[in-house]
């Protein structure tokens, strides 16, 4: 059981939790994740560690409520407990001096690219940040990203804030201007990572993406998270989650992520009904 010590709503449906776990707080490195289980009947699912405070013994997780389990987690409040938080898992993102790097985050992926950007800046890189969201109110952690980068570009799909368009647009423009880019790090929805990989492929800019396949145990035991990289099957939980974007079979990843769509929908509707009924019961009493 792990205690939630703080919670903040970053954007509609995106919540930040600070959770007590001294060992993980001490150990975690950028790019690593935890496996969370909210309650005894709950699923095990991975969440990237957005931040940690080794002194206080806490880690920060940012969650987008998209399915049953993340919605349940989102309803937890400070003082509540999570059944399990396991980690830190996965290989850390290799942090070294690359030169000039671009750190890209899409949606809730901004929370995940943030520790990578900060570590790269601390390692002496010149860091350009490009973050994006569908619309203005879904842009998260802008201030944090500003502090973790030398230059930050914010994009919105609908143009309500910053650059109008996808994150690939400013990236493409940098490439067109022949700006120096030594490495691109990208975390976000699979279509975004795939699009970024396409943009950097031709100019041959080394690009790392952090993959988010379905996982169960997170320690290499079950093989649920297998992804094809360079024609070879890899386990994202122990071989990744970071991989060379130009080698990843994104189409396969998207198909595999959709495996339980029917079940997820069913389970989400059940939960919504339960929440609604609980709300009605409270209102009636």
């Amino acid at each position, binding site marked *: 059981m792990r205690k939630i010590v703080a919670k903040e709503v970053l954007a509609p449906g995106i919540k930040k939790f600070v959770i007590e776990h001294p060992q993980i707080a001490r*150990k975690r490195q950028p790019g690593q994740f935890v496996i969370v289980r909210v309650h005894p*009947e709950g699923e095990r699912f991975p969440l990237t560690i957005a931040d940690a405070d080794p002194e206080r013994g806490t880690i920060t997780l940012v969650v987008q409520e998209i399915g049953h389990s993340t919605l349940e987690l989102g309803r937890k409040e400070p003082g509540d407990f999570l059944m399990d938080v396991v980690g830190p898992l996965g290989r850390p993102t290799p942090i070294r001096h690359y030169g000039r790097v671009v750190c890209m985050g899409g949606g809730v992926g901004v929370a995940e690219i943030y520790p990578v950007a900060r570590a790269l800046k601390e390692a002496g890189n010149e860091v350009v940040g490009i973050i994006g969201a569908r619309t203005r109110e879904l842009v998260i952690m802008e201030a944090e990203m500003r502090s973790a980068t030398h230059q930050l570009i914010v994009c919105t799909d609908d143009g309500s804030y910053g650059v109008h368009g996808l994150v690939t647009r400013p990236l493409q423009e940098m490439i067109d201007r022949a700006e120096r880019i030594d490495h691109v790090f990208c975390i976000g929805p699979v279509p975004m990572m795939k699009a970024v990989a396409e943009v950097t492929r031709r100019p041959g800019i080394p690009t790392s993406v952090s993959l988010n396949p379905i996982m*169960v145990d997170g*320690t290499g*035991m079950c*093989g649920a998270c297998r992804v094809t990289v360079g024609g070879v099957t890899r386990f994202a939980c122990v071989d990744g989650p970071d991989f060379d974007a130009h080698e990843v079979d994104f189409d396969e990843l998207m198909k595999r992520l959709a*495996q339980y769509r029917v*079940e997820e929908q069913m389970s989400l509707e059940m939960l919504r009904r339960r929440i609604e009924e609980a709300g009605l019961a409270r209102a009636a009493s």
Partner: protein
Amino acid sequence: MPREVVPTKTPMPEQDPKERVRNFREVPYGYTEELAIQEALRCLQCKKPTCIAGCPVNIDIPGFIDLVAKGDFLGAARRIKATNLLPAICGRVCPQEEQCEKACVLSKKFESVAIGRLERFVADFERETGQIQRPAIPRRTGKKVAVVGSGPAGLTVAADLIQQGHEVTVFEALHALGGVLVYGIPEFRLPKSILEAEVNFLASLGVQFEPSYVIGKTETVDELLERFDAVFLGVGAGLPHFMRIPGENLNGVYSANEYLTRANLMRAYMFPEWDTPIKKGKNVAVIGGGNTAMDAVRTALRLGAENAYLIYRRSRAEMPARLEEIHHAEEEGVQFRLLENPTRIIGDDKGWVKEIELISMQLGEPDESGRRRPVPIPGSEHRLEVDTVVVAVGQGANPLLISTTPGLKTNRWGYLEVDPETGETSRERVYAGGDIVRGGATVILAMGDGRRAARAIHERIR
């Protein structure tokens, strides 16, 4: 007492196959007191018993069976527990026909004594009547031992060392304790309540358990060595093998580990009351011939499969699974496809499994394993319509812990090298046993390793 030789084992009552394929409850009900005595009386009480040597932990088999025959079931339980602390588990999952029962004198002409069933009976009797005896624990020595992994090897080490007065902490990566016993072996073969009872018993003796704690990640072995006097690694094998054939990453293709973990540990059969889903295939193919394959294919039936195929590249005689499980699978309607091997898995345009292509095999000369080598028959490819494939072709050493522990020597398969006398690894004060040393082996062999390592650890730290 003059004894007449009874040629066949006393049958154990069990759930009707038609009924049990629709539930996850345990298949055999176990012996009644009368049946146990009846079976115990079949034992010849040999002057020079050969069965004991057939048991990796050398249980006093004639001794406990004699007590059963006399109706002293508690005495029998205690006799077993002098050497085996997990008889309720071993009685259910040990491959007795390859071990103690194979060595039984009766088996030369008739069916052997049902040693496993009797072991199970006395363990269940002791537990169900609430008469589990707590061993007297000596004064605390102040020495601390860390056990990594809560499977059969780890639990044995913990049990042995706590009884020597040492402090024991068991670390487990998953949230539930028992290792393969909890994620891998289905409830219809080993009810979780029995495992829980064994773990609770160890906890009542003072063993500390730390679930959801990944040694190698949350804390390294080197860090453990700073706060413990010795470390035992019983982390299992736990890296699923795939066949490296086209189509293995299609939706609906599972490793047996994932399939069984979803079904058992995460109780996907109770979805949506429990949150973890599983693909409930109509036509399920399980590849492999071991106990894991048998568990997976029987799980598929219970999840509602209309056709559950077991595809094995050798013949029935070479199947490594326990005989009892093969019988149970047959009774339940599993369709055995012997001497067939998958060559590729074919998907639809959405990435889901649609068919599996198989090639017929024939048996050639024996290979390194002593079993006759399966050889493909050219041009015999044919297809089978399936929507789910479970790959149960064995596993390798999970590198997670080894890669974060410098100086641990491994063999060419990635398993740990240990001193055969003590179980000590190439790192001082670090011991290992079970599947991480042997590769995929059995529960009782893992326990034997645990026992040997516990003895060596005690010698070193006392």
